[in-house]
C-alpha cells in the first residue's frame, strides 16, 4: 500500500483544507447557542478559552426562532413538501425507466434522448408558463402544486439513473419470468423493484436532499404564503428581516440544516453511490 509513505506536506495540506471546510459551520453552531449580547460583542471562538464554562451557552435563540419566527411551522412544512415530492417522481420514473430499459416501442430511443437533453434545461426556462398555469388553476401556494413541480423537475435525473440501473440487470431473469407466465407488471414489482433497492435508495436520498434544500421552486410557487413556506424560504426571508441579529440567524440556519446533515451522515454511502451512478460513467 502507498498509504504508509505519504509525505508530511500531504498531511499538512489535507488538515488545512479540512479546517477551512469545517470552521465556518462550527462557527455557526457555536454562535447559535450563545446569548445575543455575546454573539454581537465577541467572536464565537472566544468560548474556547473556557469551553467547559456552561454559563456561556443558552437555548434561548432556538426557542425564539422556532416559536416566534415561525421556524417550527416551516420545519413541519418542509416535511410535508419533501416526502411526497420525493416518492411521486421515484415511482413515475421507475415505471418509465423500466419501459425504456426492457420494452421495445416506436420512438423509444428518441424519447430517451429527450430525457437526457432535459437533464440540463435550466429551471428558469419553465417558471413563467408554469406559474401562469398555476395561477389560473389555483395551484400556486398549495402543496399539491409544489409536489408536482418537484416531480417534474426531478424526473429527468430519476429516469436516467434508474434506466441505467435496470439496463444492467441480466435479461435471462426477465425472459424466464415471462416463460413462467408473469405479466410485465409482475416483472416490474416482483423482480425489477426489489433488485433495485440500492439504486432507489440513492435516488431517494438525492431527491430528498434536493427538494429539502430547494429555494427557487418554493420561492416561485409558494412565494407569498408563510403558512406553507418550507425552511429554506423562511430562512431566506429571515436573512432579510433579521439583518444583523446573528444569534437568531445562526440558530435558524442550524434548524434548516439539521435534517439534511443527519440524512447525509446516516446514508452517506448511498448518496455517494447515486452521484457516481449518475455521473462517473464515460
Amino acid at each position, binding site marked *: 500500500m502507498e498509504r504508509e509513505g505519504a509525505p508530511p506536506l500531504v498531511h499538512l495540506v489535507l488538515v488545512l483544507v479540512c479546517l477551512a471546510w469545517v470552521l465556518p459551520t462550527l462557527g455557526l453552531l457555536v454562535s447559535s447557542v450563545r446569548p445575543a449580547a455575546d454573539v454581537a460583542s465577541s467572536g464565537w471562538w472566544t468560548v474556547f478559552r473556557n469551553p467547559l464554562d456552561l454559563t456561556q451557552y443558552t437555548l434561548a435563540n432556538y426557542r425564539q426562532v422556532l416559536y416566534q419566527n415561525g421556524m417550527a411551522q416551516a420545519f413541519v412544512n418542509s416535511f410535508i413538501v419533501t416526502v411526497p415530492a420525493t416518492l411521486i417522481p421515484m415511482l413515475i420514473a421507475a415505471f418509465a425507466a423500466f419501459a425504456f430499459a426492457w420494452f421495445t416501442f416506436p420512438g423509444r430511443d428518441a424519447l430517451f434522448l429527450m430525457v437526457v437533453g*432535459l437533464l440540463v434545461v435550466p429551471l428558469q*426556462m419553465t417558471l413563467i408558463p408554469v406559474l401562469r398555469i398555476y395561477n389560473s388553476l389555483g395551484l400556486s401556494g398549495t402543496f399539491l402544486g409544489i409536489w408536482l*413541480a418537484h416531480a417534474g423537475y426531478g424526473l429527468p435525473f430519476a429516469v436516467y439513473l434508474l434506466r441505467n440501473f435496470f439496463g444492467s440487470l441480466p435479461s435471462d431473469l426477465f425472459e424466464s419470468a415471462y416463460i413462467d407466465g408473469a405479466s410485465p407488471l409482475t416483472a416490474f414489482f416482483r423482480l425489477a423493484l426489489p433488485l433495485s433497492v440500492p439504486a432507489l435508495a440513492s435516488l431517494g436520498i438525492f431527491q430528498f436532499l434536493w427538494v429539502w434544500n430547494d429555494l427557487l421552486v418554493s420561492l416561485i410557487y409558494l412565494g407569498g404564503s408563510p403558512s406553507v413556506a418550507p425552511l429554506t424560504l423562511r430562512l431566506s426571508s429571515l436573512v432579510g428581516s433579521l439583518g444583523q441579529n446573528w444569534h437568531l440567524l445562526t440558530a435558524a440556519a442550524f434548524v434548516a440544516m439539521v435534517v439534511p446533515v443527519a440524512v447525509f451522515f446516516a446514508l452517506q454511502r448511498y448518496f455517494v453511490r447515486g452521484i457516481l451512478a449518475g455521473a462517473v460513467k464515460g
Partner: protein
Amino acid sequence: MRTGRSWAWSFVAPALLILGLYLVYPTLATIYTSFLDRGSVHWVGLENYGYAFTSPAMLTAFRNNLLWLFLFTAATVGLGLMLAVLTDRVRYEAVAKSVIFLPMAVSFVGAGVVWKFVYAYNPPGASQIGLLNQIVVALGGQPVGWLLERPWMNNIALIVVGVWIWTGFAMVILSAAYKGIPRDLKEAARVDGAGEWQLFWRVSLPYIQSTLAVVTTTMLINVLKVFDIVYVMTNGNFGTEVVANRMYKEMFQFRNFGRASAVAVVLFLAIVPLMLLNIRRFRQQEVER
C-alpha cells in the same frame, strides 16, 4: 422483450405527461413569451433581447457569470482533483472526504448564512465577530467589507461559497475514477523510473480525462444557473448580479414577463451546447455498452 406496445405506453405515459407539462411545454412557451411585452399582450420582436444584451444590469451579470465560470470551475475541479489524489494516500481518507463533502448536504441558503457570518464586518477598532476579519486583524491588517468591496472582492467572496459547497462533489467523482486506474499501469510506470509527478501527468491524468470532462461539464452547468447564493447573500447588489438572479428580479420585482423570459432564454442558449455535449456523450456510452 415480447410485450404489447400498450404496456410500454402505459409505463412511460405518466412520465412523458409530467415532463411535457413541466419542462417541454414551458420551455417553448418561454421562448414565445420573450417576444411579447411585459404583460404578454403585444408582439415586440427583439426588443427584450436588446435589453438582455445591452442593459448595464445584464452586462454586469454577464461579467460576473464569466468570472464564476472561470474561477468556480477551475477551483472546484482543481481542488477536487488535488483532494482526490491526496486523500487516496492517507489513512483518514474517509473522515477527510466526509468533511469536504458535507456542504453538499446543506442548502445554499444555509451555506449563505454560514458564510455571511464568516464575512461579518465591524469597523476597525471594534471587536470582530467574523472569522475572516479576525484573522486579517490578528495578522495586523484592516478589517475588510468582503461582501461590499466591488467589483472583485465581493464576487470572489460569493464564488468561495460555491466552491465550498461543490468541491466535495468533484472530489468524490474524481476519486472514484482515480481509484479505477489499474495498479499494473502505475507499477509499470514506476518500474520505468517515473516519479510521482510524471506518474500523475503521464498516466493518471490521461486515464481519468473523460471523467474530468464530465465533472467540468457539470460544474459549467451549475455555474450558469447559480442563483441561491447570490440571492441570499447580496441579492445582486454592489455589482454582484448574475443572470439567474436578474431573471428572478425581472419576473417578480419588475413584473416584466417579456424581459424575464428573454433573460431565461439567454441562459438557456448558453447551456444548449452543454446539452448537446451531454447527448453526444450519452450516445457514445450506449455504443460502448
